[in-house]
């Protein structure tokens, strides 16, 4: 039984005539990690907002089709209950700070206060999630005094503490420096290993290849490619349409055109795949020499 089911979903933002999403059909199994790729404007954020219920509850416009999570549709729920089904973390860490709290601990507890969770349980859940996201040592600091990577982990913790069934991440590291990126992906890796159902829009191919069970490529609001990461991320049509492509794939494709890389060898996405591919080529050539 899939936990997420989108059927024939089409969506128009208010006052627009081209759909931001068109005929999206998508089923996600429990524990699956889905990566969504696509150029800016292809519909990645719109898909994230649709899953998280902000479409149609926050952004009006016209939503057709059904969006179901755990057997209930967004249209039949209200937003403040939906947050227990789908949690959303987005790009800008600064704007995700509630502004109502003075410490990280209070900030993470904010959602539980809103949901009326008893105080003892609240403290226990906040402590657990601070530990999990590696920010326990920041508990007493002001959220505003933290680095981008730390703030983004506070945002992640604030959502994870609600224990949603599905976690939706909209380019969570696009505004991070390298350390911040590593810190945030470190937490996401843990979530993936724990078997959480995750949908992540992201540009960084190397990381996608490490986490994702399935990749969905969006183009002009439609699902344009879908499948295993290696298969989708190395598809020739991506580069033509202006998608980001891993530099390892680009290099191997260039090697292919020079007759260096054998056509039957799958193209690499990650460093490890590229290293083993090129190492094999070198070994093959040295064996072939007289």
């Amino acid at each position, binding site marked *: 039984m899939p936990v997420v089911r989108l059927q024939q979903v089409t969506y128009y933002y208010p006052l627009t005539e081209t759909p931001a999403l068109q005929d999206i059909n998508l089923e996600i199994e429990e524990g699956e990690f889905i990566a969504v790729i696509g*150029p*800016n*404007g292809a519909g990645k954020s719109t898909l994230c907002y649709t899953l998280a219920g902000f479409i149609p509850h926050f952004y009006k416009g016209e939503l057709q089709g059904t969006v179901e999570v755990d057997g209930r549709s967004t249209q039949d729920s209200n937003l403040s209950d939906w947050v227990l089904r789908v949690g959303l973390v987005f*790009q800008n860490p600064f704007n995700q700070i509630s502004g109502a709290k003075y410490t990280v601990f209070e900030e993470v507890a904010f959602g539980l206060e809103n949901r009326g969770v008893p105080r003892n349980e609240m403290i226990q859940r906040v402590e657990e999630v601070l530990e999990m996201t590696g920010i326990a040592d920041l508990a007493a600091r002001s959220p505003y005094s933290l*680095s*981008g990577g730390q703030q983004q982990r506070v945002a992640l913790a604030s959502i994870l503490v609600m224990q949603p069934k599905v976690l939706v991440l909209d*380019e969570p590291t*696009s*505004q*991070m*420096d*390298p*350390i*911040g990126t*590593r810190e945030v992906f470190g937490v996401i890796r843990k979530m993936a290993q724990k078997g959480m159902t995750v949908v992540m829009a992201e*540009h960084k191919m*190397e990381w996608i290849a490490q986490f994702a069970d399935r990749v969905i490529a969006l183009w002009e609001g439609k699902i344009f490619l879908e499948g295993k990461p290696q298969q989708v991320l190395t598809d020739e049509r991506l580069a033509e349409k*202006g*998608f*980001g*492509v*891993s*530099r*390892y794939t*680009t*290099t191997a494709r*260039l*090697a292919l055109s*020079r007759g*260096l890389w054998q056509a039957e060898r799958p193209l690499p996405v990650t*460093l490890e795949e*590229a*290293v083993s591919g*090129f*190492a094999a*080529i*070198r070994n093959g*050539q*040295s064996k072939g020499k007289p």
Partner: protein
Amino acid sequence: MNICVENLSFRYPNGVLALQGVSLEIASGEQVAIIGQNGAGKTTLVKHLNGLLQPTEGRVLIGDWDTRKYSVAKLAQRVGYVFQNPDEQLFTKTVAEEIAFGPRNLGYSKERLQTLVEDALQLTQLQAMRSANPYDLSPTWRKMVAIASILAMDTPILIFDEPTTGQDAASVGRLATIIAELKQRGKTVITITHDIDFCAENFGRVIVMGNGQVLLDGSAKEVLGQEAILAQTFVDPPQITRLGLRLGLTEVVCTPQEFLDVFETQCAA
């Protein structure tokens, strides 16, 4: 127009020493990337180049101008600075007006103003959006408007602060084209970036900063292969450089072409 930073130190009013004894020279027409983690002093350094910050010690020369003696508005004739967040500068009703704001402040003639705006629109591929309200564009294109608004000032020196943040592959490609064109025209380009692959592919010279000091300064090849020093500032070498290092290539490589050229010759050997 050369840039000369002499023994520059800077202390913020709250007592934090953000730069300590930085000295560097950037020749006219160089393409320089500055990398390093947040808090390393990158932005503090470039804010000295157009006078937004004044040295606590040492001095900065832009050509023959000592930045301590000129206002920011005056230095804008020589140094264009594209800030990280376009939303912190856009204010007009149309893209074309926004682009004209800077050159108009510099007092250019009407004809020159028009030529410069057209040129900037074309470089950033914004022609079709010239009459649009910048606020109606996507963040990706708002960034291009911010860049165009500085390009049109036609300064010999341009500074970009994190131009690739939040941009997709197509937009990063546009940026690379713009930087290449600026190089052709003999402009000096200084870019702060976290995108190490972008840095490897578009900049001849790389400066690595850490703790308010210059840790490394040299050609991209000299700098980007130094895994140990880069690691101090939590930067990984570019993807292609890492691939070369892992395969034991004797030469540091920065682009796919370079990698394959070196790989092929070393396989053949």
